[in-house]
């Protein structure tokens, strides 16, 4: 079991470029989440999905789009990258919502720098 994997691990973009971050999980989890981690701000939820074909906005969704076409994959897109999107991005998955006595399992993160 690989758990939660993220691709790529590192990326440098120029302002205005686009990219897609891929999250994959092999645990058959229903819920998937994208967070960004910034110094002194903890983890902030960008978007999440409660099942294949569903997406919902989190705390900081602006500038990002997501898709969950397959249950095991959750993609995070940046259409026009900005320096403010320089961050470490974490994907997580959960078999059920946290309210149902299940933890979130995190991926290793993607470090993105936007110049």
């Amino acid at each position: 079991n690989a758990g939660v994997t993220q691709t790529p691990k590192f990326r440098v973009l120029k302002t205005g470029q686009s990219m897609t971050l891929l999250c994959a999980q092999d645990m058959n989890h229903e819920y998937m989440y994208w967070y960004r981690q910034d110094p002194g701000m903890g983890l902030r939820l960008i978007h999440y999905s409660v099942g294949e074909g569903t997406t919902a906005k989190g705390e900081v969704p602006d500038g990002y789009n997501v898709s969950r076409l397959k249950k095991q994959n959750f993609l995070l897109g940046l259409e026009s990258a900005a320096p403010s999107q320089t961050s470490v991005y974490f994907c997580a998955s959960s078999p059920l919502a946290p309210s149902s006595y299940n933890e979130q399992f995190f991926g290793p993160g993607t470090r993105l720098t936007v110049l």
Partner: protein
Amino acid sequence: AQSVSQHNHHVILSEAASLELGCNYSYGGTVNLFWYVQYPGQHLQLLLKYFSGDPLVKGIKGFEAEFIKSKFSFNLRKPSVQWSDTAEYFCAVGGYNTDKLIFGTGTRLQVFP
């Protein structure tokens, strides 16, 4: 508004010292509470969680946390820290009927030999 506060931003300890990291939350209704740890260069891992029952929860690596409902707190403790406990620690709260977690800003712990 729902929120989680971790007032200790950076804690420096010597090995064998005792640790207590504060976590307070603001949330209406029944909550589920978590502590996650992020070792340098690694992803977040669950340390422990509380959903109901005994308010004193024991987790991995000798950590424990106590849920005090009247104080809206879920403080993390360890009687004797080790150098390998150097990491960032995050408290998180999830409402019973929600599908998201709210994370605190984290506490960076440095343990010196």
